[in-house]
């Protein structure tokens, strides 16, 4: 039974000339698990929000968009609130209350339910999700994954028929994401809730997807089942890409999990050879930490304990670890923002560092992307700042370097636009470009791939390699193990405030079984010496 459908849906934002959605048509059956796939800014979030009338963006809309056979725009407010739920990308900005128990009451209270009904619905929801441990917690004390789970519970509490999720995994580490995915699948499989979500990292959800709608510059490029989608877009997930680059012919269904992919690869007995040495030469030390310990408050527990670490010139270093392992604190020690209470931090003379923050919004001090990049390239004086804030600014590139970086990161078309109007992935690129324009000796990235689509990840990967080639030093902390496998030369695993492993990339990814890349997991039975750990190695090894 069809739950909702779109026919020739076109949408143009107020003030914009080109439509963001152009003639999109599709229909979704009840109980389906639909993925909206496409590059950053292709109109995925706009489409999701159009499906929920009360948060639909302002603009001109033509075509049909129906829910249960009637136009969504004519749905009564209560029906829309009750039947269609929405969870946004950023887990931090969605809560209204201070405590989880009150957050869960918000929706049923708004629907005017009685106290007895509210209590029952909240109790059922908390029990269903097995979230009794969160019920009495203050939301501020929750991790990103827990907050996103609370957002899902708060959206689900009145049993909606359709659940809309906008990149729900993009800000979660893989292990927090797993708990959220389990909860989402429970909703989908046990209660038959229709799920429509956007996501870039689709590997974990691939086995459950029934339909994929591919959007490209606002147009519906394909609407097919997961198998057909993976045949047409093998780059979307490693499990589909590995057979593709190794030349393995997929006769039946395309592998949707890394396990299926491993079985397929094993059956073909591939022989791969590498010339990359295990040991990678390193330059002179730039920043070194000796037995550095750090805690935020006197009397509290150490976040970092007696850490020994050296960052050398020309390094491309990745620090990996779960949420709360101390990665961001470590980055702050390196940048000099924090100082250890014991141990030493030694920096090379006249060393300049630039930090790309986890939340790119933290560096958006101007109205347009062009001004942000210009200010990063040529720091404004008090006078120029006054001019800028008085509206006499110019978003055009101030010099060729701004032009070059903006072009490399695909930001040229966004220069006159407000950074807050961009998608999360585009915002991340602006922050990266601003850091690159400061031309520092050391670039420190905090979760650089958060919210980036595969094409942007590739572009960032290339950019980091180029930086390494011209002698820049790069360090990033991330959860994205596949990105690390493609980019970094050295890796370190931070666990409970200590480095448990620091090694060159290949050694790092061949010595672990959990903290390893998708490629290394697929080829785990291969001899570690010739085991590929990244997709580019698979391609090279094949040759």
């Amino acid at each position, binding site marked *: 039974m069809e739950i909702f459908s779109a026919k020739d849906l076109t949408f143009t934002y107020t003030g914009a000339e080109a439509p963001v959605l152009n003639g999109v048509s599709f229909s979704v059956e009840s109980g389906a698990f639909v993925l909206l796939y496409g590059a950053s800014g292709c109109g995925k979030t706009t489409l999701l929000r159009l499906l*929920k009338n*009360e*948060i639909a963006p302002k603009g001109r809309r033509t075509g049909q968009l129906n829910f249960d056979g009637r136009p969504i725009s004519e749905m009564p*407010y*209560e029906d829309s*609130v*009750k039947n269609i*739920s*929405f969870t*946004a990308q*950023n887990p*931090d*900005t*969605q*809560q*209204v*209350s*201070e*405590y989880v128990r*009150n957050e869960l*009451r*918000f*929706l049923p*209270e*708004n*629907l*005017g339910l009685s*106290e007895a009904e*509210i209590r029952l619905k909240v109790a059922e929801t908390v029990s269903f999700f097995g979230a009794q441990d969160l019920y*009495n917690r*203050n939301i*501020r004390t929750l991790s990103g994954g827990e907050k996103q789970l609370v*957002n899902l519970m*708060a*959206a689900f509490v009145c049993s909606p028929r359709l659940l809309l999720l906008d990149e729900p995994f993009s800000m979660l580490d893989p292990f927090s994401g797993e708990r959220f995915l389990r909860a989402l699948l429970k909703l989908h499989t046990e209660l038959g809730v229709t799920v429509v979500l956007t996501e870039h990292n689709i590997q974990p959800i691939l086995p459950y997807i029934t339909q994929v709608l591919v959007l490209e510059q606002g147009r519906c490029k394909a609407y097919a089942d997961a198998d057909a989608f993976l045949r047409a877009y093998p780059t979307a997930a490693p499990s589909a890409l590995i057979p593709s680059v190794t030349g393995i012919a997929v006769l039946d269904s395309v592998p949707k999990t890394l396990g299926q992919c491993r079985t397929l690869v094993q059956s073909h007995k591939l022989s791969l050879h590498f010339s990359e040495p295990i040991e990678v030469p390193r330059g002179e030390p730039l920043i070194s930490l000796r037995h550095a310990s750090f805690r935020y*408050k006197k*009397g509290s527990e150490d976040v970092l304990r007696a850490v020994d670490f050296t960052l050398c010139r020309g390094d491309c270093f990745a620090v990996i670890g779960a949420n709360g392992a101390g990665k961001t604190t470590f980055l*702050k020690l390196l*940048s000099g*923002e924090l100082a250890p209470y014991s141990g030493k931090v030694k920096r090379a003379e006249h060393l300049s560092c630039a*930090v790309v*923050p*986890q*939340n790119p*919004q*933290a*560096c*958006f*001090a*101007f109205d347009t992307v062009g001004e942000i990049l210009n*200010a990063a390239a040529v*720091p*404004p*004086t*008090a006078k120029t*700042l006054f001019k800028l*804030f008085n509206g006499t600014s110019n978003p055009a590139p101030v010099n060729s370097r701004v032009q070059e970086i903006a072009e490399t990161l695909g930001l040229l078309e966004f220069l006159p636009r407000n950074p*807050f109007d961009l998608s999360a992935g585009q915002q991340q690129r602006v*922050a990266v470009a601003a850091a690159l324009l400061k031309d520092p000796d050391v670039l420190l990235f905090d979760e650089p791939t958060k919210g980036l689509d595969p094409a942007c990840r590739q572009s960032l990967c290339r950019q980091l390699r180029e930086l390494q080639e011209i002698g820049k030093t790069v360090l990033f902390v991330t959860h994205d193990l596949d990105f690390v496998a493609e980019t970094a030369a050295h890796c370190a695993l931070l666990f409970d405030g200590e480095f448990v492993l620091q090694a060159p990339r290949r050694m790092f990814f061949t010595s672990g079984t959990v903290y390893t890349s998708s490629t290394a997991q697929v080829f785990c039975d291969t001899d570690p010496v010739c085991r590929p750990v990244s997709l580019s190695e698979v391609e090279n090894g094949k040759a």
Partner: protein
Amino acid sequence: MNINRTLFYKLHTGTLLWLLLGVSVLTVTRVQPILAVLCVLSGALSFLCYGQRLELRALLRFCLPVGAVLVLCNVLFSRNGMTVLFYIGDAAVTLESVLYALLSALHFTGAALWFSFYCAFLDADRIYRLFSGVSRGLAIIFSLSMALVPKTLQKYEQTCAALPASADKDNKLTVRFLRLSALFSWVLEDSFQTAVSMKARGAMCPMCRTRQKYRFSVGDTAAVLLTVGEMCAVFLAPPLKAEIYPCFRPSVYFEQAWIYIPLAFFYFMPCLLKLWEVCKWKFSVQRI
């Protein structure tokens, strides 16, 4: 300690507000050294009773230097008083000015202690639920504004890290402007996202109503009646009756010292409730 499970937390939001108001008004409108001392002692003891030792220490670290500055300023600029202690140049430093400044410092510390102590109990959710019956929109704005303060401070730290200042003086100033600009845009943008989330969950639903989760219990009635009666008794009692209006001259009632007993009861109510809870639990355990 999880204060959410304590008897004091379970009191109605209105009762808690009434008690905070009572303590503040009583202390500030009476220039009474003994009341000021009671206020500071009971505030500090309340922090300790509810396991907030670190918070108390942090607060005293702020209040004590401010109090010291207050004393110093009063001593340096006030020439009132009869008992000259010593001279700084030609200016006399009097015992009265020192004592009056100490009293002001105690008032400041007491007010800060009590306000911070109640802040732990009066969270944004409770304020929202208390006032949403009157005006739901205003209650949401008020409670979200309360929650916005810690969030903004957290964001400011991140903004400082993302836009670091160099040693150059001119640059420092511009970077501060840039940080504020980035912070305001970010906070505003996040507020829009929160508003979208609220709308998606029916915040503007015509049939919406907030259920009063915290009921006005027998304990609340008892607490309010007790404090009202006590206040009446205190204010109508001979020593205070004459000073029904705020007075600015320090005085101590040595002859009617009994008056401080019910007032002490009022000030130490959070501690007494905690004591009652502990005793009740101990007796229950013994019975088991």
